[in-house]
């Protein structure tokens, strides 16, 4: 059981370093908190409303915007404040009425209502409802103007009649229904997506930092000294891999428990979640071993850890959810699945969104096991040469 002894020494060495405590336990939860807050599922999107002249048309428009569900209308004093609010992210969008809104419209002139929004992919919904509210008021005014210009009555009279007609007449409506397969991963909570993403990001990246330890073991001559004892190379490799694997498991378990208790993140079937972590931790350990075998200095190892760890996470849907990647482009979605991250996320999402069990994620787990096997084999083959050199 020399492998166990080797991994125990590694673990002790690892957790004596206070930085490890930070990156294994503190950082992931901190970032889940930040991400969850930033995705802002709890807060309603805010629409700034600038109206320099308080008149009936303005009030009407404000009321109809306020009636929209899922939108908070906030009065803002000036257009500068509103634009800055949107630029700084305090407001998701702002609508700016010109001074003398009603008077201009009544005098027969057209009015452009300024609108600014965040440059964010999911802003269209807000733009849509704002546009609908403006159009609703505008078409009524158009009716009054239509009648007025054709000499059928005064603007006010026509407007009053039109308002009456709109209440009395049934609207032409749209009946909405859906068909086809729903998109996967719909219906996840505010913290669910960030928690899953950060889980795979941190397990992979943190395990990868183990590569630097391996490089140190080689450079300090520890490997050679071990080799001079009756310890076969495969035992040494097993010991090194086992310590990385253990750290990954501890971190995975901690992130799941922590996000569950603090943020109420749903992880679905517990056995399924544990199995996914186990297999993914094996993939990460394999990657760490391979990196540790390939590079020659620990500075290089830590640089590559950052690059590879973050790149694969970004590509694999840990930072921008897979569902969004799928909507963006098919190529991006397909490339994402080159990374093990994407397969682990698919597994988590099928456990949570589809309430799947172990059988449902067996395919994903097999693919991940394949990654782990290939990486570990490559690492062993390469390490055998470098460890004893």
């Amino acid at each position, binding site marked *: 059981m020399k492998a166990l002894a080797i991994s125990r020494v590694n673990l002790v060495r690892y957790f004596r370093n206070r930085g490890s405590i930070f990156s294994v336990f503190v950082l992931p939860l901190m970032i889940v908190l930040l991400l969850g807050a930033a995705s802002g599922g709890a807060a309603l999107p805010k629409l700034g409303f600038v109206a320099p002249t308080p008149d009936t048309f303005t009030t009407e428009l404000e009321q109809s915007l306020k009636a929209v569900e899922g939108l908070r209308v906030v009065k803002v004093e000036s257009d500068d404040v509103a634009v800055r609010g949107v*630029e700084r992210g305090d407001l998701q969008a702002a609508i700016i009425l010109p001074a003398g809104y009603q008077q201009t419209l009544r005098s027969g002139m057209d009015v452009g209502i300024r609108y600014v929004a965040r*440059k964010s992919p999911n802003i269209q919904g807000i733009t849509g409802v704002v546009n609908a509210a403006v159009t609703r008021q505008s*078409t009524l005014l158009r009716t009054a103007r239509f009648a007025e210009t054709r000499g*059928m009555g005064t603007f006010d009279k026509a407007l009053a009649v039109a308002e009456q*007609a709109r209440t009395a007449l049934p609207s032409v409506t749209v009946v909405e229904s*859906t*068909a*086809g397969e*729903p998109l996967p991963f719909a219906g996840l909570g505010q913290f669910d997506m960030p928690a899953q993403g950060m889980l795979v990001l941190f397990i992979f990246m943190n395990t990868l930092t183990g590569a630097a330890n391996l490089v140190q073991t080689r450079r300090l001559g520890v490997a050679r000294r071990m080799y001079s004892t009756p310890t076969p190379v495969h035992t040494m490799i097993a010991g090194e891999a086992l310590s990385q694997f253990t750290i990954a498991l501890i971190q995975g378990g901690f992130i799941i428990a922590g996000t569950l208790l603090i943020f109420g993140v749903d992880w679905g079937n517990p056995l399924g979640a544990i199995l996914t972590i186990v297999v993914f931790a094996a993939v990460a350990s394999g990657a760490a071993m391979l990196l540790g075998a390939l590079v020659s200095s620990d500075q290089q190892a830590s640089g590559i850890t950052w690059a590879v760890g973050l790149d694969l996470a970004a590509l694999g849907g840990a*930072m921008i959810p897979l569902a969004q990647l799928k909507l963006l482009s098919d190529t991006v979605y397909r490339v994402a699945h080159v990374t093990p991250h994407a397969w682990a996320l698919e597994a988590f999402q099928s456990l949570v969104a589809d309430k799947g069990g172990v059988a449902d994620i067996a395919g994903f787990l097999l693919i991940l096991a394949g990654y782990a096997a290939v990486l570990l084999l490559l690492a062993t083959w390469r390490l055998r040469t470098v460890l004893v050199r």
Partner: protein
Amino acid sequence: MGAAWTIARKDLKLRLRDRSAYIIGIVAPLGLALVFGFVLNPISDFTFTARYAVADLDRGPVSALFVDDVLRSTKGVRVVKVASVAEAEALVDATVNPLGGTGDKQGADAAFIFPKGFSADVQSERPAAVQVIGSQSSQTNAGVSLALAQGYASELTSVRVTVATVENLTGRRVDRLATGVKVLQTPNPATLVDETTTTKQLDPVTFYAAGMAIFFLFFTVQSGVTALLEERRTGTMARLLSSPIPRSAVLIGKMLSAFALGIVSMTVLMVATTLAVDANWGPPLGVALLILAAVVAALGIVALIGGLARSTEQANTASSMIAIILGFIGGTFFDVSQAGGALARLRFISPHGWFMQGLADLSAGDVSVIITPVLAMLAFGLIAGAIGMARLRKGLRA
């Protein structure tokens, strides 16, 4: 000063020979910026294409007007006419490609169904409804189809209201179809003018390019302090100090090499992301000032940590931790300003936050707006740096 130059040159040579400078300073951030560009560019390059099925059981003028004037005039829309509701449903069901490309794709993103007698109903005062079946796997395009139908329905309602108003005011019946067409040709008195593009915001691709650059900058300049502490540990510092070189020259030399690495890495990243993923950093003069201030801030903070640390390992660990925390709080990985409230304001305790805000402000083109961010970053750098350098200098005596 000559000694400082020599030390800086030697350090730079060392750092470049050991390839980690390239990896941390260029490869890692550039790789991430490219990945984010690759992932996010489809948003900005997005051209709308959709396939919509139309089952026109009405065959009247009102449904024809929708197909010809609304659907066919919307760019990127391809119309597939079908004979029955079942056929329309089958097409929507068959959509597998969520991208809504029109190429070789089967099925339809959504279907519009105009029931029999729709045109007549619209012209009467009876309730009338158009049906839209959206594909669940093609949410964006289905959403557009719904918006098109709702827009048209609200125009039809408005025509209906206008006709009723006209008939009420004049007291006689009018030709409803002809009046309706006239109403629709009248422009709306009030319209939204979207000015989002003129606002000072970074587009997602530039955001990540700049975010990754400043995030890794703190790791890049860390090398200067690490080198100093490392020389103390390996004993070469004692030899260096026994020579007739002022202590400050040693310190300046180390900092100078880190400064150079920081500037070069930021510049390379700016140029590379501009060329490769169309990042738009803004007017070069403003960007140059922001980068300069950011490098000073990073150096100062790293020097402070190095000055307070007891060992190289401790300095490295603490620098990384602080760089990560400041990076996340400052909103380099995701837009914390979106979070609003305290979290959004918190970013200004980090130079990263000032850098990102400076670039966002700069994006409208006016260089003068970066004065505050530049001063804030310089303040971070100079205050932290002064304390750090004093401590490091003291450490050199030992």
